[in-house]
């Protein structure tokens, strides 16, 4: 083992591959500890409730590091930290005035505007009036309505306001009439005047000015933080690739050795099954099972292993046929070793040099197979994975719409894991099969 290690270190690709694999494993361990399984599923399936204050299709924030890019971040102003004035206006009615002020320093418009209400009352809901004050000192009345306990007023989707303003609110409200192409920079204030009809009634509000950049990975069209899926995709991909590769190579090896050792009808049967296996179309069968029976990752994993058990027997067969004739097997037989002992203890170890590189190069193909199933829409119904992000992006027309980050990030991770294992596998192949080395 130490010999292999010292030889491997001579190949820069092997070192790079190992580094990539190490990184991916570290990410996996971190993810599983930091975001537990149940939490990840809750977040990913959360929908609007969990993510409603995230912007849609926001770029990752590191885009701002690129030269010439300056994307606005999301600004949230809560009334709990804003100046509040309470007056009694008679008849048991209280008037609450909250001024939600914020600085807008960006050169691009925000994507959306919304006010989230948090109202508590017994019978009669508070009535609110919203007024908008841009930095130039003018005043625009946005509207008035009744505040629900967890009501959301999406200023950007208010059709009446849009007509009054003569354009999209998030643009008109932020631009100076003289230069409508650029947002006016400075201090904006949203004044919320609420009329509370009960003594114990309470009103709070949060203004969210949705930006164009969010988190390290951006968001999708359902406002979900892509980071969750990118992080959780790592342990899923690693586990699927490793388990499938282990399951299929080990069983293939055992079956090939048994066939060669026992010969006769056992060997014949194994060869016939191998031929049938070649013709059974793996992806359509997986699709069929996914549609008809179950999409659970573990069921699919078992079927994948089952379908690939016989796929590789041909390679090992040739090897074992040679091994079977070697003198040391003869010696083992002469001292009375049983059939099973010869197969497991004497024949299998001889295949390791061929097996190990193949095993490592096989892992990424299973990782990609999992992504393939996601793309067909047959991924695990619960878990967020890289393939699912790609699938969502594809269905939402991300490439057509210019949301390249949405496609490129999961694709880069897939490519990275593929390259890591393939590079290590190629180097292992050279270490174990010296005939390749001088070439």
């Amino acid at each position: 083992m130490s010999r292999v290690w010292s030889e491997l270190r001579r190949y820069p690709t092997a070192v790079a591959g190992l580094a990539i694999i190490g990184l991916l494993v570290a990410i996996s361990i971190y993810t599983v500890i930091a975001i537990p399984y149940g939490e990840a599923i809750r977040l990913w399936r959360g929908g609007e409730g969990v993510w409603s204050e995230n912007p849609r299709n926001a770029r990752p924030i590191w885009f701002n590091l690129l030269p010439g890019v300056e994307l606005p971040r999301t600004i949230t102003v809560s009334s709990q930290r804003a100046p509040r004035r309470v007056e009694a206006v008679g008849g048991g009615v209280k008037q609450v005035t909250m001024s939600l002020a914020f600085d807008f320093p960006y050169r691009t418009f925000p994507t959306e505007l919304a006010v989230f209400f948090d109202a508590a009352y017994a019978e009669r809901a508070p009535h609110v009036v919203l007024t908008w004050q841009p930095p130039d000192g003018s005043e625009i009345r946005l509207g008035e309505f009744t505040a629900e306990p967890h009501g959301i007023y999406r200023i950007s989707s208010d059709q009446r306001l849009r007509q009054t303003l003569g354009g999209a609110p998030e643009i008109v409200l932020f631009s100076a009439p003289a230069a409508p192409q650029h947002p006016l920079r400075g201090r904006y204030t949203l004044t919320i005047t609420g009329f509370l009809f009960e003594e114990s009634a309470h009103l709070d509000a949060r203004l969210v000015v949705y930006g164009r950049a969010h988190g390290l990975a951006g968001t999708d069209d359902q406002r979900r933080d892509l980071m969750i899926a990118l992080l959780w995709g790592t342990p899923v991909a690693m586990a699927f690739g490793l388990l499938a590769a282990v399951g299929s190579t080990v069983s293939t090896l055992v079956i090939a050795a048994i066939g060669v050792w026992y010969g006769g009808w056992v060997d014949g049967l194994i060869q016939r099954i191998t031929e049938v296996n070649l013709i059974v179309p793996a992806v359509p069968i997986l699709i069929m099972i996914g549609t008809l029976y179950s999409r659970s990752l573990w069921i699919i994993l078992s079927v994948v292993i089952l379908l690939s058990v016989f796929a590789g027997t041909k390679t090992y067969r040739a090897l074992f046929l040679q091994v079977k004739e070697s003198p040391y097997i003869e010696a083992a037989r002469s001292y009375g070793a049983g059939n099973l002992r010869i197969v497991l203890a004497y024949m299998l170890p001889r295949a390791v040099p061929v097996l190990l590189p193949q095993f490592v190069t096989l892992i990424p193909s299973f990782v990609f197979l999992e992504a393939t199933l996601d793309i067909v829409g047959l991924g695990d119904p619960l878990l967020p994975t890289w393939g699912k992000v790609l699938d969502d992006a594809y269905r939402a027309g991300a490439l057509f719409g210019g949301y390249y980050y949405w496609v490129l990030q999961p694709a880069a991770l897939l490519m990275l894991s593929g390259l890591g294992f393939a590079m290590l596998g190629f180097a292992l192949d050279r270490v174990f099969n010296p005939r390749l080395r001088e070439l």
Partner: protein
Amino acid sequence: MSDTLQMVSRRHRLPDTLVRVVSYSATRLVALFFTAVVGIFVTILVANMGGYVDEIKRAEIRETVTLQVFTDPKIMRLPAEARERRMREMIRIGEERLGLDRPFLSRSLFYLRDALVLRLGFAERMNSDSGSRLVRNIILERLPPTLLLFVSADLLLFFASMFMALSLARQYGSVLDRIVIALAPTSAAPAWFFGIFLILIFAAVLRWLPFGGMVDVPPPDRSVAYAASVLKHMVLPVGAIVFSTIFLAVYSWRTFFLIFSSEDYVEVARAKGLPTRVIERRYILRPTLPTIITGFALGLIGIWTGAVVLETVFNWPGLGQALFRAVGLYDIPVILGATIIYAYLLAITVFILDILYALVDPRVKLSREGRP
């Protein structure tokens, strides 16, 4: 390939080769047919474990009986109750004929017979472009685009990687050689994955080539313009297929060529002063061809199974896209039918490669390899 054929006939007498290849092919055909039958039977068993094939058959019988009743004026003239009875009777006879009242295994054998002759029932929700609801029509209609795409990609792949491998073997250690070796690990990713990048670069950013589809909308009238349009749409998917496998193929073949070019008989040929081209063709390519074809065959089978997603990504109106749509619509007959067709396609691929193998490898004899 014609070169190789000539070489074969030059060295052996033609009738000899012909007899050998034909008899070998015939036995392989029989063997492969049985293999395909078993493969399709496995597919049917898997699907029918949940009783899904039974459902398809029942729906098929109901459909045909209803059609029969409504086009038969004799039955239509009967009073409603008698007509109902008549219909039920006809359905019962139909179910008996298809073996629906039999136990699981023998029932599945009946279905196998139907599947082998491509009697695949009616689709639940999908239609063929000509409006037919027969699964067979839906699938057969989608076959030509799939074949066009994959056969052209495979041919391009085979010849391109062979020439590249030969030229790299000639100049191994060069910059180009190192680049190809460095790029070989990229073949871990399937074709659709590269397809996404190709679409991103050539369709989304540069706007040179279409995002997907097979022809422009509306399709051009003149056949030349139509062919040009199809060709334009083929560039990216074919490129994705070629890109996803070519580096690994070139890498492993050039290594193989290099190993063979250090054999003694090649050295002798070189010492004789034979031109490089002749040495390559007669002493390197010729003996390695069988192995290369086997490797190529396995790669081809891998490409077939990746077809579903590739066609979906490129919106190519082929079999894979039909399967993808069937999954979305939960159209079980179409899913089952497509799986069976894929099994057939794989069997045909294996058969064609077997024949090629027999053509190029004079050692292949019935007695040794050809036993079913």
